[in-house]
């Protein structure tokens, strides 16, 4: 037995039966159906990757240019002019290690926040589990992440920082960033369908959020009494985690990570419910 959106699909001798009725209450998550449509997820992500750098001269080079340029500016202003502490490392690699997960996260939630509206023509003409759309938007920037990561390993060679066993923990932090981005993206995507105001607030949100995360400065700069509040931002744990894994700086703040994890899971759970609830009217409103 397989269930599809607000519709129940039972396989009997007569083949699948699909019942269409107004759904009541909270619709179930229906992961089985999501799995059934996994190839569509793949194709949507693949399309976005294909299309993005068509007709550009340096193509995928843009992926590296952007964080490198940001790093250069940060190094100039925060590292050189403001003499920002950087856990005893060259400021450039310190900030680049922060930018790596940050860029992934900000791209992932920006894209998934805009994803439903960007795919309005699909949503109003074809049925598929709508969750696929923000999900694929979270997957796409992983490519950028991979390319930027290669650039980072090059820099680590340059500064002769050797990899350690802690690298193995990195996927954990990356998944944490992805889940956080999805959690935020689901809320934004569903809201954006009805209120286009959301599209205008996302750039501010990105900017504000970046300064609320230890991208350009070390988390140790934040006064102890604010740490709990600070830790509610999941990117604090992620970025510090990245530095811990790659550069071996600082210690893992397990308490802080637990707080972030709870925040993210609550946000994700709420996001999914909200999304499923709004899903029914996407095609009518978008």
């Amino acid at each position, binding site marked *: 037995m397989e269930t599809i959106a607000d519709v129940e699909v039972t396989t009997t001798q007569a083949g699948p039966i699909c019942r269409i009725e107004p759904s009541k209450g909270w619709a179930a998550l229906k992961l089985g159906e999501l799995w059934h449509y996994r190839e569509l997820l793949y194709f949507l992500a693949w399309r976005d990757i294909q299309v993005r750098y068509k007709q550009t001269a340096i193509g995928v080079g843009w992926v590296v240019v952007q964080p490198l340029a940001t790093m250069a500016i940060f190094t100039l202003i925060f590292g050189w002019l403001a003499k920002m502490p950087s856990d005893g490392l060259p400021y450039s690699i310190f900030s680049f290690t922060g930018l790596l997960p940050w860029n992934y996260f900000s791209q992932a939630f920006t894209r998934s926040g805009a994803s439903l509206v960007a795919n309005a023509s699909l949503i109003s003409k*074809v049925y598929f589990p709508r969750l696929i759309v923000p999900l694929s938007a979270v997957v796409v920037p992983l490519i950028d992440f991979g390319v930027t990561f290669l650039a980072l390993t090059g820099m680590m060679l340059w500064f002769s920082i050797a990899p350690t066993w802690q690298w193995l923990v990195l996927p954990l932090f990356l998944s944490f960033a992805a889940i956080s981005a999805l959690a935020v993206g689901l809320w934004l995507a569903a809201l954006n369908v009805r209120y286009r105001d959301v599209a205008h607030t996302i750039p501010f949100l990105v900017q504000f959020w970046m300064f609320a995360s230890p991208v350009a400065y070390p988390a140790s700069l934040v006064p102890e009494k604010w740490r709990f509040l600070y830790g509610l931002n999941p990117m604090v744990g992620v970025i510090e985690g990245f530095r811990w894994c790659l550069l071996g700086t600082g210690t893992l703040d397990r308490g802080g990570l637990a707080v972030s994890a709870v925040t993210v899971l609550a946000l994700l759970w709420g996001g999914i419910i909200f999304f499923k609830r709004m899903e029914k009217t996407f095609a009518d409103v978008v």
Partner: protein
Amino acid sequence: MTDIAIRVEGLSKQYKIGVAKARHDTVRDTIVDYGGRLAKWWRHPDSHPQNDDPSHIWALKDVSFEVKRGQVMGIIGRNGAGKSTLLKILSRITEPTSGKAELHGRVGSLLEVGTGFDRELTGRENVYLNGAILGMRKAEIDRKFKDIVEFAQVEKFIDTPVKRYSSGMYVRLAFAVAAHLEPEILIVDEVLAVGDAEFQRKCLSKMGSITQEGRTILFVSHSMSAVLRLCSHAILLHGGQLVYQAPSAAVVDRYLSSGSESGSERIWTEQDRVAIHGPFIPIAVRVRDATGEQAEVVKTVCPFSIEIEYELIDTVRDLSLQIKLYSIQGEHLFTTSERDEALNYDRFMVKNPGRYISRCRVPANLLNRGIFVVEISAAIPNVHWLFRDHSAVRFSVDDAGGAGSQWAGDRGGFFRPALHWDVLVS
């Protein structure tokens, strides 16, 4: 195993008019709206906001029917009759407000040709993307890829981005993917309205072969000849309600003869316009006789005109406003466009927002006695339709005094030209 493929019971869908009109709500509107409702509730706590509320309309109301396995069912009705809403509900794109439907079998739905086509991608890439969107597996597309490309006749260009395709190639490729879906129940909305005549024939025969394989098809079309050719049965929707269900010939007859509200004028009310998004908003279509009066009957021997009144709420480039004239039986007699004349073509390349009246003068001695149906359409050629009404208005022609009226009896044919004969006597 039942022999019913689709069972629809009391299906209804209510739309809030505000949703369709001010589509991009803002947070502020919502706050104001909720504030208003709260205040109303405070004063009349018992009032129920849902029913009889003028801000809600029923796009579909209490529609019930059944389709047998292997049957091809046509759905006909005017714009705004609820056809698209019905298909959207059955395709699970939107939810009904009440009622239910059961579909027995794998459902494939085709509400648009080339949904999800990306102009930047090559033909090959689009086949895979579009196939996946329509619910095909990659392995399935691999298997059918060759047939699809062959059907579309685009072998040479399959690795070219589709933005370099001619519109004909684009449509052929898009339809080819869809035509290779193998669902047990196929839901099709007016997709044959695109493409050249030869390709349309090919699509129709492909669809015909689909039904021979025992598939059930639900088919919305404005082309009465396509409905007659493909569908054994049809249902007629009007104002969201099912008004008639019978073998297709009977339904087409009823539709054509019930046609327009009044013979000489068709007016789009506020309610009708709800379903129309986009820059082109129709206001009225009228038939006027030689003296400029609205007329249900015009004379063969006098010129008359057909006028379209409309509003553009946005600047539109390259608008093609067309009239197609049909006989009551559905034969297409001619097509004429507002910008056929070179002068108008250039002058109205870009049309500014505003109200327009476009009047087409039909010369005397053109049409024979009979009833004629006017289709109007607004489109941006090769890009998309803005509006279309296949039976906007009807009028009849009185042939009194027409060429050859000294002869007794009916002349037949659609035209009654007064032609000159040279007679050489030797």
